[in-house]
């Protein structure tokens, strides 16, 4: 290595020193879009698999359709974890909802956009509560739970407005569990895996997870 005094060989910034920049770069927007689009595709597949499944679960135990909700929620949590900018969870979830609508892979029409909006907000609020600075595992789980709660409120209003209170209660509990496990835990594990592959080298989420090489 060229030994000029101006060039140090130690890693330059530690986590605490890095100035937090909340403006979205182009790479933030594009990768968030890709996460959103990929998730939208998975939503479509999930829709096609879960609709018959939901019909099967209904008579057995009420409200447990909520358990399947997680598949719709991970876009926002994953987006928030990777991009780490205000609005990331909202944007990714909304875009995923839009994509699933356009591909015609859902039964709910444009109201999926409303779902996407509220569910994205559910996760977004959790990240906001932590001031967009804490992305540890428990925050991811909480974001999943937040999205799950939002999902319940939206679904009960839009699709099951005539439901009884016990149904609503079970639905809520099931959605939160699903949100925590599928949206929260899986997203967090995916983030760690992605960071190790070096795919997130342009993101703080990638650099924070890998040691300096």
């Amino acid at each position: 290595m060229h030994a000029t005094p101006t060039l140090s060989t130690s890693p330059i910034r530690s986590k605490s020193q890095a100035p937090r920049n909340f403006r979205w770069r182009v790479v933030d927007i594009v990768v968030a879009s890709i996460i959103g689009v990929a998730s939208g595709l998975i939503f479509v597949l999930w829709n096609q698999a879960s609709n018959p499944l939901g019909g099967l679960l209904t008579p057995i135990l009420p409200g447990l359709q909520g358990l399947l909700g997680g598949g719709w929620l991970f876009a926002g949590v994953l987006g928030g974890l990777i991009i780490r900018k205000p609005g990331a969870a909202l944007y990714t979830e909304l875009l995923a909802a839009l994509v699933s609508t356009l591909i015609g892979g859902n039964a709910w029409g444009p109201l999926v956009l409303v779902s996407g909006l509220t569910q994205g907000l559910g996760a977004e609020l959790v990240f906001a509560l932590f001031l967009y600075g804490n992305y540890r595992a428990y925050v991811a789980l909480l974001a999943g739970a937040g999205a799950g709660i939002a999902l319940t409120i939206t679904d009960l209003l839009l699709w099951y407005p005539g439901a009884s209170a016990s149904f609503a209660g079970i639905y809520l509990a099931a959605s939160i569990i699903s949100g925590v496990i599928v949206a929260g835990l899986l997203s967090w594990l995916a983030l760690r895996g992605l960071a190790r592959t070096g795919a997130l080298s342009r993101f703080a989420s990638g650099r924070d997870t890998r040691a300096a090489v």
Partner: protein
Amino acid sequence: MTLVAPDGRRANHEPRSALSHLNPVAKLGASLVLALVLVLTIDWVSAGVALACETVLFFWAGLTLRVFFLRTALVWIAAPAAGLTTLLYGQAAGTVHWSFGLVLVTDGSIELAVATVLRVLAIGLPAVVLFITIDPTDLADGLGQVVRLPARFVLGGLAGLRMVGLFLDDWRALELARRARGIGDSGAIRRFANQAFALLVLSIRRGSKLATAMEARGFGAPLERTWARESVFGAREYALMGIGLAIALLSATVSVATGSWNFVLA
């Protein structure tokens, strides 16, 4: 190579109809307006009226029956599913017909179930019909120029959307590779997760490269951008929104007039 492509304004397999050239924002707007009004109440009259009006318009849309049912299949599955749920667990009212555990089928729940089925159909069917003729680039132009959403996000989303085709190619290659590597025989769920993760890695890398390419073309600079394709929101678009609003208001009016309006938050 001078291939003269067919009209590139729509994907080759999409049906051509009177709806193809309308501004996507109008389509989105019309279906949203209709949905938001219908969602305010849970009664079969409003949903039924809306459905009746829509059925008339579907013929005008120019889809073959086969395409129509193929595309709206999910709606036809979801409607009875939602109806069944409401039937079994709906708010109780009137005579009880069957009770088992938490299941409670009553007059009230039957009525709500019918309303739910009609409502899902009334909202879902026109949405599908309108949306399958939307060209993503036109939608982006509309959202950026008419609705004035931030251009960076709209176009970033559009660029990401274009990657779908590549995702599918990648998925196929990933599948073949797993067979070649000896793990194609068993463990389907594990393989799916592994493949999905690999796809995520590949797409994010592609995304980073795409972002660089877009930046190199000046994207994201603080300059005021211009639009090469004009997104027109004219008489026809207002007409479509008007139709959506009219159907919504008609449904609501008839419902209130017949006394079956049932506000959802009540």
